[in-house]
């Protein structure tokens, strides 16, 4: 029933069976709800039922707003989704049998493994480097501040592909890398050709680039922590390490995580550039197979798409729970997890159906 339940205070034509309990029940909802004369049907159903628990509870239940546009939009989206699904399934252009053939091929999975390795190493190295750079930019030491700023400026200015190709050609530029006094003797030296496998080049290149972007993400997070927190840490004499790891960073993480995950998803996809330093990642393998089997280019691209979607989704799920962890104390009551929310929604739907059936 959808009418605002109005309880008539003086039901003049009171139904015969329950004359005594009716006034007592009607006295529960006070004045305002009882002002207009009740519509006949509202009067007819729940009150006349008399005495049962559902009847006495029903008048006080507030019905949710009606949302017809929500239903309309849902319907529209369902139609569009069905069309897209139909197109994907029936258009022979996609060659789903070939997709199936390629999806779990060892060469593709090998490429996927390379993608995962490069992305994971670069994400960790980039975040560590970015945190160091962010602290550098917030340092009280002006030299450290300037150096961090310069690094970020440089690596945000140079396209990733240029960085990668530079590193790839590094061995041509410098025959050996040595650590020591400039123009003087070196005390530590590497032979470039041994050091630089393609994987190392790819990870170093991506990390250098990633660190510059991560630095700004981390810095934004650190700046978002209220000044009073720093003062409180000062007043308690908390040592710098404890203060950073236990007080400032956990609060900064709330701002850092969403932006850094954005960054991370970009990173996963920019690993496809390592193809240019002759490393066969997921995209590289697809490219490779595509040139060998030109007829399978579309299903191969679909394979790459689906794998990238899976990787991104996995990252998003992790993001959700990481964010939840760092939201501790930020809200009076933490929001439910998606599974819990689904269960609650199912319960609510059942309740509504039951209510609808009753009305």
């Amino acid at each position, binding site marked *: 029933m959808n009418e605002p339940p109005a309880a008539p205070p003086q039901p003049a034509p009171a139904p015969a069976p329950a004359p005594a309990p009716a006034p007592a029940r009607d006295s529960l909802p006070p004045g305002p709800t009882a002002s207009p004369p009740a519509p006949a049907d509202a009067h007819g159903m729940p009150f006349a039922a008399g005495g049962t628990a559902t009847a006495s509870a029903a008048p006080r239940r507030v019905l949710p707003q009606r949302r017809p546009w929500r239903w309309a939009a849902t319907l529209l989206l369902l139609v569009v989704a069905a069309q897209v699904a139909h197109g994907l399934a029936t258009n022979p252009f996609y060659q789903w049998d070939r997709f199936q053939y390629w999806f779990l091929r060892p060469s593709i999975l090998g490429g996927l493994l390379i993608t995962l390795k490069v992305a994971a190493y670069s994400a960790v190295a980039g975040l560590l480097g970015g945190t160091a750079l962010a602290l550098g930019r917030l340092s009280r030491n002006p030299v450290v501040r300037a150096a961090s700023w310069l690094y970020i400026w440089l690596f945000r200015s140079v396209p990733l592909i240029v960085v990668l190709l530079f590193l790839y050609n590094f061995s041509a530029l410098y025959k050996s890398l040595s650590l020591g006094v400039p123009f003087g003797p070196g005390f530590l030296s590497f032979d470039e050709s041994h050091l630089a496998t393609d994987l190392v080049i790819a990870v170093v290149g991506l990390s250098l680039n990633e660190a510059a972007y991560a630095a700004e993400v981390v810095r934004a997070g650190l700046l978002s922590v209220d000044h009073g927190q720093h003062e409180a840490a000062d007043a308690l*004499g908390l040592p710098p390490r404890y203060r950073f790891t236990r007080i400032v960073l956990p*609060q900064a993480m709330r701002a850092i995580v969403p932006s850094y995950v954005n960054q991370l998803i970009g990173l996963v996809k920019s690993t496809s550039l390592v193809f240019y330093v002759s490393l066969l990642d997921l995209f590289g393998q697809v490219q490779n197979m595509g040139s060998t089997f030109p007829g399978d280019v579309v299903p191969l691209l679909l394979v790459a798409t689906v794998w990238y979607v899976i990787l991104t989704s996995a990252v998003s799920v992790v993001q959700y729970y990481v964010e939840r962890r760092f939201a501790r104390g930020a809200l009076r009551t933490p929001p439910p997890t998606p599974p819990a929310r689904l269960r609650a929604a199912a319960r609510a739907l059942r309740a509504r159906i039951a209510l609808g059936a009753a009305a």
Partner: protein
Amino acid sequence: MSAPLAGTGAPGPGSAPHAATATPRRAGPPAAVEVRGAHKWYGAHHVLDGVELTVPAGRVTAVLGPSGSGKSTLLRAINHLEKLDSGHVLVNGELIGVRRQGTRLRELGERAIRAQRGRIGFVFQDFNLFPHLTAAQNVAAAPVATGRRTRADAQEWARSLLGLVGLAGKADAYPRQLSGGQQQRVAIARAMALEPGVILFDEPTSALDPELVGEVLDVIKSLAGTGTTLIVVTHEIGFAREIADDVVFLDGGRIVEQGPPGEVLVHPRSPRTRAFLSRAV
């Protein structure tokens, strides 16, 4: 003794706090906090204009004054949250935030400053609790971080301090789940966690709804007379009258009047104190 400190009675770095630093006005307990010749500018604004203050140990001193009179700056200078441009602060005879270098004062290193701050508790106007930590974790943070207590020991200590401020049942609540008055009581427990000899309160009730002020003042009252020196910057004249042993009235960065509440609040000598009290009451 070096020139800028001459005649202030400041003891040498190694010497014990001595009676000469106690206020000459009263032969009371030795001074817990002394501020000598404190000047502070914010740009052209002269916030502290040669403040001289002696706070006897184990007493409650209320600092009153109109807003912008430098009350908070003075309080924050006592634990070196605010750096003085000239002058110095002694807490229990120890120079705070600086050391003698020839005839001048040189700012101490971070580590030494942190050690000194551990001996001075500070309660902020807007609590500044760590929102991602529970009440007990807030209180236990400093003893654990400074290595004074083990984690388990600090937890127990935190719970006993929370019991002291009447929040034994809220040890595991996060600050956002507590009312303003409860949060400020947690903040007081946190300030007591390192067992400081001096606790500074910077308008501890100004951010609270009127009906929550009482519970915080009651906790501060319960600390009075336990041997801890309390300095309270406040707007609550009634509170100053009731529990302060000493009232300091600050205006324009200078101490205009200091004495027992019975004198300063009842028979103020300075016209500025009189004007402030007539407006406030």
